[in-house]
């Protein structure tokens, strides 16, 4: 072996990874070669430094980190699959039961299954009727609110808030009334055009637990978060908080569109800037609406007492009007549904039940959102009416 080959083998010798024959050859070489002995000693020292440096710096994980991973892993587990052998046994049992059952009742479903499907259909129709009723109420309230502020210019603070709020609510409801509003020369359309004014970029940088975090909301409303190692982006604050909740919790990022907080530090745009951002992000939530009203009321009130009175009165009116919402009575012809369901075979009934359950689930989610939006729309109408009286 040459000294160069020995030099390469010394590494493996120190790692305890040479086979017996090779180790013997290397040790024989070390007995007479002073240069390689020197290399061996240097290398041993270097290995020690490397091991100390690489292994010594590591700090173990916290219990919370370990727990968080375990929770994430459990949440990611797919539904348990049935092993093939067990599946074959189940199919065999199922087939034999099916043969006996079909001899008794052909392929007609049992009465309790029919009843369940009828109940699901009633439930779906009820949701559907309620959703239509709530949507109609929202449209009515938004229409009234826009009518009251129609005579005002896009620079009027109340008119601007109501116009942007009503557009965002209508869009979240699934409608985009902008074309129609433009045709009618509605103020909301004017505000939207005027909203092209730059909203300004808000940025905040802070050190949290030794890591430097930077959160920026651009003029397009998009929020970018840079943390050591990576960055994320979201369309608005709501999306950021829901899609990256762990990151936000870890670095204490919160706020709303146009108002960012990281830890104890905060940065925000003025109200007009925030409205412009809300127009772009389409996020009109309870907080935005309260801020809009508060901003307007603060400018109108002559003193703190009047401001407080206005706020309290607005709160009470919002609360009272939320109670006065129309209830929708679903018109379901149970007999007709029952007649139809009874003609279905087992397979058809099962598929129908699955389809209806999936539709009902989606309707439930939309209904829940519509109910929240109804409160916003009602609040906007009350805001507009108060601003109309106050001119």
């Amino acid at each position, binding site marked *: 072996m040459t000294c160069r080959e020995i030099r390469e083998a010394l590494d493996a010798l120190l790692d305890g990874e040479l086979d017996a024959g090779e180790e013997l050859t290397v040790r024989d070489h070390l007995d007479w070669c002073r240069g390689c002995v020197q290399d061996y000693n240097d290398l041993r020292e270097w290995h020690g430094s490397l091991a100390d440096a*690489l292994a010594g710096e*590591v700090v173990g994980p916290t219990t919370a980190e370990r727990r968080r991973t*375990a929770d994430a*892993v459990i949440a990611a587990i797919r539904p348990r699959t049935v092993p093939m052998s067990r599946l074959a046994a189940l199919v065999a049992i199922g087939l034999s039961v099916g043969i006996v059952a079909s001899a008794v009742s052909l392929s007609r479903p049992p009465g309790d299954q029919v009843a369940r499907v009828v109940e699901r259909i009633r439930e779906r129709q009820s949701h559907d009727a309620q959703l239509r009723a709530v949507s109609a109420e929202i449209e009515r309230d938004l229409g009234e609110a826009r009518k009251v502020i129609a005579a005002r210019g896009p620079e009027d603070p109340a008119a601007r808030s109501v116009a942007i709020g009503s557009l965002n609510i209508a869009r979240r409801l699934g409608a985009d009334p902008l074309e129609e509003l433009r045709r009618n020369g509605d103020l909301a359309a004017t505000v939207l055009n005027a909203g092209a004014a730059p909203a300004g970029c808000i*940025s905040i940088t802070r050190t949290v637990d030794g890591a430097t975090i*930077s959160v920026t909301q651009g003029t397009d409303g998009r929020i970018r978060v840079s943390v*050591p*190692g990576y*960055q994320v982006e979201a369309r608005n604050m709501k999306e950021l908080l829901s899609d990256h909740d762990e990151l936000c919790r870890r670095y204490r990022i919160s706020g709303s569109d146009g108002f960012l907080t990281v830890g104890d530090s905060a940065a925000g745009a003025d109200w007009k800037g925030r409205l412009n951002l809300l127009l772009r992000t389409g996020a009109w939530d309870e907080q935005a609406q309260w801020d809009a009203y508060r901003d307007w009321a603060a400018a109108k009130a002559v003193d703190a007492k009047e401001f407080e009175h206005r706020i309290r009165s607005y709160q009470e009116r919002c609360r009272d009007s939320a109670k006065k919402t129309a209830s929708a009575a679903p018109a379901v012809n149970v007999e007709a549904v029952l007649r139809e369901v009874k003609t279905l075979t087992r397979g058809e009934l099962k598929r129908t039940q699955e389809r209806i359950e999936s539709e009902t689930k989606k309707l439930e989610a939309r209904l829940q959102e519509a109910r929240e939006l109804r409160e916003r729309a009602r609040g906007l109408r009350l805001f507009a009416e108060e601003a109309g009286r106050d001119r």
Partner: protein
Amino acid sequence: MNTWSESELVAGCREGRREAFDALVTVHYDRIHRLAWSLAGAEAAADLAQETFLAAVKAFPRFRADAQLSTWLVSILRNQYSLFLRGLRKWKAAPLSDRLPAPEPRPIEREVREILDRVKDLPEELRTTLVLFHVDGMKYADIARAMECPVGTVRSRLFEARERLKRLVSKADRP
């Protein structure tokens, strides 16, 4: 809970049992976290470890019975680390004018700091081999299985990594 044997753990995970995956994390998390820390640094260690276990959940149907769980997890960690590096490089290359300085390091010996700094300059396959050997104490054969390469390659990579690192550190020492 650490009372699962390897075969019980594998069987439980194959069946998708929650308690088995919980035990998998309990048994292997600290080791994967330690390696993730050495490879990617303190800030990314927890995320990299978590991504490794999440990828393991997805990949479990492909786990071969003759493989060792710990080695298999290390191979997944390596894949995730490669993805992490690619993401990091893309991010570094992006024109981010407001990139911020890293937090101040803990005061540790100069040579140790120098080594840790220079390890980051090694190519991924050299750095991973070095970390698996020195941090985890894995044998050449296990490293070879985790990195899907011959044992001879592990040996030459370790040699190459140490040589390069020594050159980098002594270069930095020169005034």
